[in-house]
């Protein structure tokens, strides 16, 4: 690892840190800079006419924050809510969004050359939201472009840019 680190330093290649989380059977990772905090699941206030994977909104110290259950969105894992259910609070484009995942495992550091191109198929995520693959301790980790996913039209969390104008 030290050689990698030196390598990264000498080439000024940023060694980025990722937070790994579990969805169903697979391990995913997202850029840790997007993570605001990790907390337990709390009951939310439902929002009418929102898709089922948008659980609702909750109060994060005075901010009204939407909660998305990625397990439901991608049909993996079991969408049950216990005291061990984990919510990752993300900060994307100045907005805060909470995502429910099966579990959070670790923080890993990856240099650019450790990341291989993403597969075209075989994971719950559409490949357009994937950054690449990496292997940590023989465990395959899928890197997710969380910013792109959260602001995607598919999740429809935000008003899409083109119809931002209020009528």
């Amino acid at each position, binding site marked *: 690892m030290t050689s990698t680190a030196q390598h990264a330093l000498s080439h000024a290649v940023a060694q980025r840190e990722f937070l790994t989380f579990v969805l169903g059977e697979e391990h995913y990772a997202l850029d840790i800079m997007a993570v605001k905090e990790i907390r337990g699941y709390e009951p939310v206030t*439902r929002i*009418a006419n929102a898709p089922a994977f948008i659980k609702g909104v909750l109060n994060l110290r005075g901010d*009204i924050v939407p909660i998305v259950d990625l397990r439901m969105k991608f049909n993996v894992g079991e969408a049950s809510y216990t005291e061990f259910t984990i919510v990752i609070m993300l900060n994307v484009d100045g907005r805060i969004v909470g995502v429910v995942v099966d579990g959070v495992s670790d923080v890993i550091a990856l240099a650019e050359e450790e990341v291989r191109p993403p597969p075209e198929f075989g994971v719950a995520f559409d490949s357009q939201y994937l950054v690449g693959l990496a292997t940590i301790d023989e465990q395959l980790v899928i890197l997710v472009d969380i910013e792109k996913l959260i602001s995607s039209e598919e999740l429809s969390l935000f*008003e899409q840019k083109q119809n931002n104008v209020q009528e």
Partner: protein
Amino acid sequence: MSIEMEQFHNVFFEESQEHLDEMEQFLMELDLEQPDKELLNSIFRAAHSIKGGSGIFGFDALTGLTHVMENLLDRARKDTLQLTTAIVDTLLSTVDILKGILNSYRSGGDIDWAAISQGTEQLEQMLSKGVEPADEKGYGLFEQPVLGKVDDSFGFFEEHTDVAEDEGFGLFDMEESAVSETSEGDKADVVPASTEPQTSQAQDKGTASQPHQPTVERKAPAASVESSTIRVDTQKIDALVNLVGELVITQSMLAMIGDKGGLEAEERRQAALVELQRNTREIQEAVMSMRMLPMSFVFNRFPRLVRDLSGKLGKSVDLQIEGGNTEIDKGLIEKLVDPLTHLVRNSIDHGIEAPEVRAQSKKDSEGRLILRAAHKGGSILISIIDDGAGLNRARILAKAKDNAIWVSENPQDIEVWNLIFAPGFSTASEVTDVSGRGVGMDVVKRNIEALGGRVEIESEQGKGAAFHIRLPLTLAILDGMCVSVGDQVYVVPLVNIIESIQPLADQVRSMGNDKLLWVREEYWPLISLGQQMDVRPQHKEVTQGIVVLIESAKKRFGLWVDALVGQQQVVIKSLEQHYKRVPGVAGATIMGDGSVALIMDVESLATQVKSAPQPVQEAS
């Protein structure tokens, strides 16, 4: 620029802006025959402060001009110079130039040196002669707004004045005004930059106020950026510090009692809780009051506007400002400026008639315009009242017909007046005048509604018109009724609620799939909140639940909920900040237990309602 320096600069900008506003206001108040010494001193001090500050920070453009201004003011206050209207006009236009420079410095734009040298020259002329400057010297350095006819009331007022020369009064970005007059070409050659249209300095256009013309009120684009700092009366802060002190005491009281049992401890605990409640409320009020500014912040700019505009139109208008001390939320104040300006312009332009016409109709030759602000219940009422010609019913109806806008037969006056808010009302020629800022009556209405307010019109032909703007006191806090459906709690704004009832079986009628409720001699269409919000209600029958009778701007309807939870003040939080707009929901709030409750948007719920047949028109 280092951060600290920038901080100082910002303070300087803020203060200078205040000084300039002050100067303008005081200049307007000056009695030319017997100028108030104290007033002159204040103006002098303001100019001096700007000069000093600009010298320190190296804003030379400001220093030079204020220096000459100061000289002039100094002579005026030492009685060696008799003030004339021309001098005051020049001083006012100097204030305008200074504002322009300040904005250029603030926004990092180019300095309009031509305007400065011209302003300096004018002032020096005043100094040397102490008399009127050569009137017809156009200086030629400035873009003369070349504008068409301003008729942004869309001709609904009886016009007795030809306003074809209306120059837009500098309130608009005048793109087409870039045609510059260079009557004195040599001057223009010295400072050629000034003849170029400088969009960043659009505010400087129109400053070429020749002394014989009324000076021009301008609203610089940069100035319309909401200021991010706020000045608070130290008394208010002291009061808050005091209250926080009390809060700390109450907290320690509660800590001392702790979870002790027994009757005595329980009594003390209750007392402390009552104290805590009082403290919280008072702190809330104190903090909210810091956001409040007196309406005079907006009103103070109107004497100048009215003076300039009426002078230009050859009308004489007496402006009366009432209730300038009425406090209103800072956020509202900044958004009120444009709509109010538009309405005042309209009143002078099209409401108040020319003196001759007024004499014919046996009115005072001086028209009267009242700007009034007052608290009315939980809201603020701002009125713009003139004693002019009033709205012209026939003309509005004709225009509606031209524009193919549907009007019912024999419409009531209110209905006719409201037609002027229709977006399609302006005709092409009018659009060009106002398009610079996009302000028309429909925009006025939209702006006010965006603030949660309403505009009402009263008008009597020949007697005058009144525009009433009703606004909530603050945007941040709402009196709400909490209602529950299933396991969810929703907040309905209290202002919209007429009453809440548990309906009897014979009050409920069905009409197809829709339900109607017969209350108060009226059929009320029913909406199920559970259905709207996709929540399963506790009760299947309306008669087991509660119906909240709601009045929106458009319709009246009944909202069927499971139960009333209680009435309380809620703090409005934006849902859009981290999520998106949800139909039927105005925002969210945080309840006492930390959970989130959605605040219903009554107006958008009303659009879901089909109008009920009304056998009896009058509601009791």
